[in-house]
């Protein structure tokens, strides 16, 4: 069993309620932070912990905090990004649904460190029932003196508000989220100014992911140095992985980032192997935006070394032969899955979610979907593959926000690694409508197919 820092108590009956959470040692980190630590000391512990943003970008959280401007007389805000919408990702939902007070405790400590008296949780509208759980937890916390005026007699006031989104993946991008929180369309802003200088209502703002803020609790409890000892290299602490697709045990797992990809997929403690006795074909290891990897590049890197479930190892080889940790949305595809069709559903997703502000993304995502649809339905031509490649290349890096890149990368990786499957589709128009390309040379080299 690996180290568990976030989900350790997830199975304690009633842990969702304040009384049980408190009895299990909850809010002791908040007590320590507010009563015994200075703001500088809290930020220092988070910096020392090496905690990286758990939403997908992996930016060091302590550094992000240290950027916040502190102009005299201007309120500052902490905003919790709970707009979890990256396909394959459902870890924040799990955390909020089962351990709402862990998030609130992390929010309280972080609000104190950043000087936020009004902190907002921006949660995707579809998670409305999770928002109800959070609202109830907030009331419990306020009733017990952890929120409100003069918390623990420190003179610090803090209230946490839940803000319901309404169905827009783009609002997971922090400046789009801020726009949405101001009651507008979720159009990302041009940076600079960064939110740390001018964010919500043009006030200094820090936006952090749910899991990032929950991780502040164990960091304060054990100290940043101890936290940094868990894991490997710059992948410190634990990470929540939401595993889905064609595996025996889909679900949310906490890993300490020293486990190999092979063990994660095949061990009974985690995914429990590929479902229905099928063979592994491919994996999208960090949410739909990150490059898909064929089995032969997933378990071992191009250099033949074991690949591990951490930031550095998953990206080993760059985009040529590696991928990314991303949000931890781990999607497994078995031998029966069609890469063209999978790429098509993702291209449709990004077309649907493009806010429409930048032409390369607005037009490009639509074109990619149409061309993939054409190939999938048996009407493709070989030149379509080059056209797809050309379009994705013209989106990447040419938009205000990273949604353009996120839309381009899955298409690029699918062509890069599975070009012969695309060609097979095009050259076998009728056959491709009734059967699949299968494993071919993409087979997992360790678990050799019979």
């Amino acid at each position, binding site marked *: 069993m690996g180290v568990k820092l976030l989900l350790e108590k997830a199975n304690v009956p009633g842990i969702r309620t304040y009384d049980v959470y408190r009895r299990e040692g909850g809010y002791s980190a908040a007590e320590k932070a507010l009563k015994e630590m200075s703001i500088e000391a809290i930020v220092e512990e988070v910096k020392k912990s090496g905690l990286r943003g758990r939403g997908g970008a992996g930016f060091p959280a302590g550094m992000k905090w240290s950027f916040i401007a502190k102009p005299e007389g201007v309120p500052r805000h902490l905003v919790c990004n709970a707009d979890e919408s990256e396909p394959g990702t459902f870890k924040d939902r799990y955390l909020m649904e089962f351990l709402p007070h862990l998030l609130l405790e992390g929010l309280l400590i972080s609000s104190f460190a950043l000087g936020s008296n009004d902190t907002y949780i921006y949660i995707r509208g579809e998670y409305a029932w999770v928002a109800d759980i959070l609202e109830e937890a907030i009331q419990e916390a306020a009733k017990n003196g952890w929120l409100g005026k003069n918390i623990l007699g420190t003179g610090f006031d803090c209230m946490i508000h839940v803000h319901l989104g309404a169905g827009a993946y783009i609002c997971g991008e922090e400046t789009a989220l801020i726009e949405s929180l101001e*009651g507008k369309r979720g159009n990302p802003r041009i940076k600079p100014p960064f939110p740390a200088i001018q964010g919500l*209502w043009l006030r200094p703002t820090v936006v952090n992911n749910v899991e990032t803020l929950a991780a502040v609790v164990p960091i304060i409890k054990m100290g940043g140095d101890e936290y940094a000892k868990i894991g490997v290299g710059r992948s410190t602490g634990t990470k929540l992985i939401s595993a*889905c697709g064609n595996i025996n045990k889909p679900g949310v797992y906490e890993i300490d980032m020293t486990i190999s990809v092979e063990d994660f997929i095949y061990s009974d403690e985690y995914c429990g192997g590929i479902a229905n006795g099928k063979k592994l074909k491919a994996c999208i290891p960090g949410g739909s935006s990150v490059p898909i990897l064929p089995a032969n590049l997933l378990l071992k890197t191009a250099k033949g070394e074991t690949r591990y479930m951490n930031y550095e190892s998953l990206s080993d080889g760059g985009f040529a032969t590696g991928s990314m940790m991303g949000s931890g949305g781990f999607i497994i595809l078995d031998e029966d899955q069609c890469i063209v069709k999978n790429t098509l559903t993702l291209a449709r997703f990004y077309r649907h979610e493009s806010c429409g502000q930048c032409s390369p993304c607005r037009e490009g995502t639509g074109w990619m979907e149409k061309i993939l649809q054409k190939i999938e339905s048996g009407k493709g031509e070989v030149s379509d593959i080059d056209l797809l490649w050309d379009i994705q290349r013209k989106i990447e890096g040419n938009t205000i926000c990273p949604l353009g890149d996120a839309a381009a990368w899955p298409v690029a990786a699918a062509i890069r690694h599975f070009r012969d499957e695309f060609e097979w589709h095009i050259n076998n128009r009728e056959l491709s409508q009734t059967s699949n390309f299968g494993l071919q040379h993409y087979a997992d080299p360790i678990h050799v197919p019979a």
Partner: protein
Amino acid sequence: MSLEFNNEQMTEFKRLVARYPEGKQKSALLPVLHLAQDSFGGWLPTEAMDHVAVLLNIEPIEVYEVATFYSMYNLKPVGKFVFEVCQTGPCMISGSENIIAYIQQQLAIKPGETTKDGIFTLKLVECLGACGYAPMMQVGKIYREHLTKEKVDAIIAEYRMQVAAQN
């Protein structure tokens, strides 16, 4: 037709607006539109959006541009129960297409349509964050997960009984 919040809905409206600083009441727009949609039959007629604009002291266009941007707001009438079935990658590789086809067959409607009796609407949606419990759909506030044909039958029967009990 004029649509206005009743007293109870106004109390909820005030609770939502109170979350934001003085003068920043526009921030409540998304939550207030949810309230309006729930209050006025599951969709947002222009009159409802105009009412929200007056209450928040903003221009009607500021409400329209938001209502048309976010996928959860319905701009035309829907059935009593809206089946929002996820069709994105992880659900697709877990068999969502069969489920979507089965629902279409059982309800005799296509995506975007409402049954003649006004009970069901079928809507195809993008990732709802339930990928580990696929295939799935959202009905109102509830997630219906690990869908099978048998489960779909049971869900349809359950809602039909709810409607029958109310009549």
